[in-house]
């Protein structure tokens, strides 16, 4: 399985903390094409530690493309050049010997840099806490099959629900807008019968908090969908807009 190694030049963003000014540091690596991008960074870190130098801080967890923890901007693209995957699934066979690779953190006002390639994405959780749920108490629920849901609807809800919350949509958007992320949750619940009672309240609260955190607005360039590791569709943004207008017209909320 071990193929011939390839030689690369990495330019990695290093930044001590949120206040300090960052810059690129160059690393020359020789890596197996079967290795993943993050394993390559592990190797660099192991070498740095051997020299008692501070390793590159970056986040990752499941390394299966589902937890949403990892996220690097590689040559200007969140999660790198291959569509529909997270950074952890990017393998070095997608690069050529001699390539120069720039590695930057996700950049947005709402995602302040913590250290090196690690950013604070908690604004996304704040949006979720504002209304991204269905209010049911434990055990106070009907049988799972009590309400039939058409297969297509369940499937469409699943398309939206599979968002991994990585923030690549924000990182990719020229406006650092979180519309794809927020709309995925709004859509999932707007589609399902269980989500109906709080339908309008939900979209109003979530959009309000989203705006407070300084995400930009949507210019419909669809970079978010192109970079989303799960291919969450911009149709969800359209649906959220629709939900929002309906909410504003129909809800009792005059705030």
């Amino acid at each position, binding site marked *: 399985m*071990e193929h011939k190694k390839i030689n690369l030049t990495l330019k990695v963003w290093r930044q001590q*903390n949120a206040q300090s000014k960052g810059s690129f540091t160059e690393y020359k690596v020789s890596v*197996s094409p079967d*290795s993943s991008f*993050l*394993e*390559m960074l*592990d190797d660099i870190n*192991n070498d*740095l*530690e*051997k020299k*008692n*130098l*501070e*390793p590159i*801080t970056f*986040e990752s*967890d*499941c*390394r299966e493309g589902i937890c*949403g*923890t990892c996220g690097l901007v590689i040559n200007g693209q969140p999660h790198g050049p291959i569509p*529909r995957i997270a950074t952890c*699934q990017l*393998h070095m*066979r997608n690069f050529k010997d001699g390539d120069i690779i720039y590695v930057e953190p996700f950049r947005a006002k709402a995602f302040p840099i*913590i250290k090196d390639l690690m950013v*604070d*994405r*908690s604004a*996304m*959780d704040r949006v979720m*806490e504002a*209304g*991204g*749920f*269905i*209010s*049911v108490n*434990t*055990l106070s*629920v*009907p049988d*799972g*099959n009590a309400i*039939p*849901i*058409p*297969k297509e609807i*369940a*499937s469409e809800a*699943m398309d939206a*629900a*599979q968002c991994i*919350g990585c923030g690549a949509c924000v990182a990719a958007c020229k406006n650092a807008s979180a519309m794809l992320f927020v709309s995925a949750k709004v859509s*999932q*619940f707007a589609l*399902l019968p*269980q989500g109906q009672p709080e339908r309008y309240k939900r979209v109003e609260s979530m959009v309000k908090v989203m705006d407070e955190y300084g995400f930009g607005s949507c210019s419909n360039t669809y970079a978010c969908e192109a970079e989303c590791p799960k291919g969450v569709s911009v149709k969800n943004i359209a649906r959220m807009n629709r939900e929002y207008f309906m909410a504003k017209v129909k809800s009792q909320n005059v705030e």
Partner: protein
Amino acid sequence: MIKLDSKVPEGKLEEKWTNHKFNMKLVNPANKRKYDVIVVGTGLAGASAAASLGELGYNVKAFTFHDSARRAHSIAAQGGINAAKNYQNDGDSVYRLFYDTIKGGDFRSREANVYRLAEVSNNIIDQCVAQGVPFAREYGGLLDNRSFGGALVSRTFYARGQTGQQLLLGAYTAMNRQINLGKVKLYTRREMLDVVVVDGAAKGIVVRNMLTGEIEKYSAHAVILATGGYANTYFLSTSAMNSNATAIWRAHKRGAAFANPCFTQIHPTCLPLHGENQSKLTLMSESLRNDGRIWVSKLKKDMRKPNDIPEEERDYYLERKYPTYGNLSPRDISSRAAKEAIDDGRGAQGQDAVYLDFKDAINRLGQKVIEERYGNLFEIYETITGDNPYQSPMKIYPAPHYTMGGLWVDYNMQSTIPGLFVGGEANFSDHGANRLGASALMQGLADGYFVLPYTIGNYLAGDKPTLVKTDHPEFEKVKKEVEDKNAKLLSIKGKRTVDDIHKQLGRIMWNKVGMGRNEKGLKEAMVEIKALREEFWKDVNVVGDSKDVNQCLERAARVADYLELGELMALDALTRNESCGGHFREEYQTEEGEALRNDEDYAFVSAWEFKDVGKWELNKEPLEFTSVKLATRSYK
């Protein structure tokens, strides 16, 4: 010697939980807000417990070392969740789910716990549907099911290949609702480094703020640990990079007994290793075995491409050895069968791998159906390996995946430290010596939604509402100890990196405390681990300081704990002179190479009590079976 009281209620198996719920003490609704509960970990068990306790009115403080509560490794569970709904009319029932689970666990779990798990399984599905979890459905709009290993009924509910994700997001949103209502306070990027025991009861925790490096103290009336398993002791496992044993291990060192540490699950369908710098192993869902056929060549050292090997030269060894269950044989059995084939020199193209082939299924059902069922898994496979599984069979190999062992808990999920409760994979309670597929999600949510909220109430009803303050001398003492330990790690400044030592530990564990274990190897492992631990404390290099983000320090603290836990795993395996489930002692096997269980001498839970580093005392909780007959597990 700890007194192990399982507190299993009296009465018939079917009535135990109902009676117990009635007999439990209740907290006056107006008083609930006077009680604080700490939940460590926000995976399935933690988030669901935090949400349910918040709903009941308790003040919950939830802790996660992640940046968000949505990242726990429960999210990576692919295949599904079991429930005894019998929606398929194929003869399923609570009793059958109970029986399959206890049999799957090779009769090494506590009967009453397993029955309760099966009993509440149906509630979980209802709960999740109501939360908006988009389970797969049939055209009529009703919930769809599929089959999993170790069962002859279709009882697994799923959401594409992302069931764990959807269930976790369900629990996460339920918890978010409580955060929104102010009943749950979430602390992210905090890693629990110790539990604080005051007057014999757990009263709080000490955590490291992973952004500032500060050691923080939090107090409560009860503490729940839902911090997952310890498969990362093997370095290479399907666990997430940050999954670790530190929370349960430090609790163990404060007095919580550790049960059945050697019961680890090696999952049969993972992607094989690609090289030295591999950071983790990737699981391919067991659901693939519904349609995929597992085989190796009949010839040794067969280097031909899989598609060039004619049908009659292929050995579909699971179908051959276990005709009833075939490719859906339980995980421990399938993994061992793969190991046997590879040890016999019949691995795929000479590698440590076997084939998982979809050719027949594609011919029978068409590529489109296979794409619908497993499309995303096939994509993952192709992304990682660069091979197209529609054209040539997948190569798979077993990998450490789940740990059935964990902190010992009684029927109330309380550890041997009063007030310290343990849920999910972190406890040992429900899976015995082997866990069936799609049962981990079931157990995590059962503990969090339907068990802990009751039993915690019962405990708190007997506790005073006054909260121990965090300036209590015991808190100060524990904090100081944690700080000293971190300072020690940072001061060694040796030559070896943390990962380097962890990898070495992983190799020892995999080779000697892995799929096949024997006395000689286990004894060697214990010596080697001890030596490695000493080397670690002399020669590790932890770069940086503790004043801000320091991932190197985080890893070092975890590896320090693995180096103690690994030894206990080996010791437990050495002590258990039988083969059962995931624990296969080569000395104890039948002539056909099947596990040879010894119910006479080993029908007990090993609950290890910590005495000092490298020193434990064994306590035994006898396992009594009243409803099931102990039988040799047969999947033939």
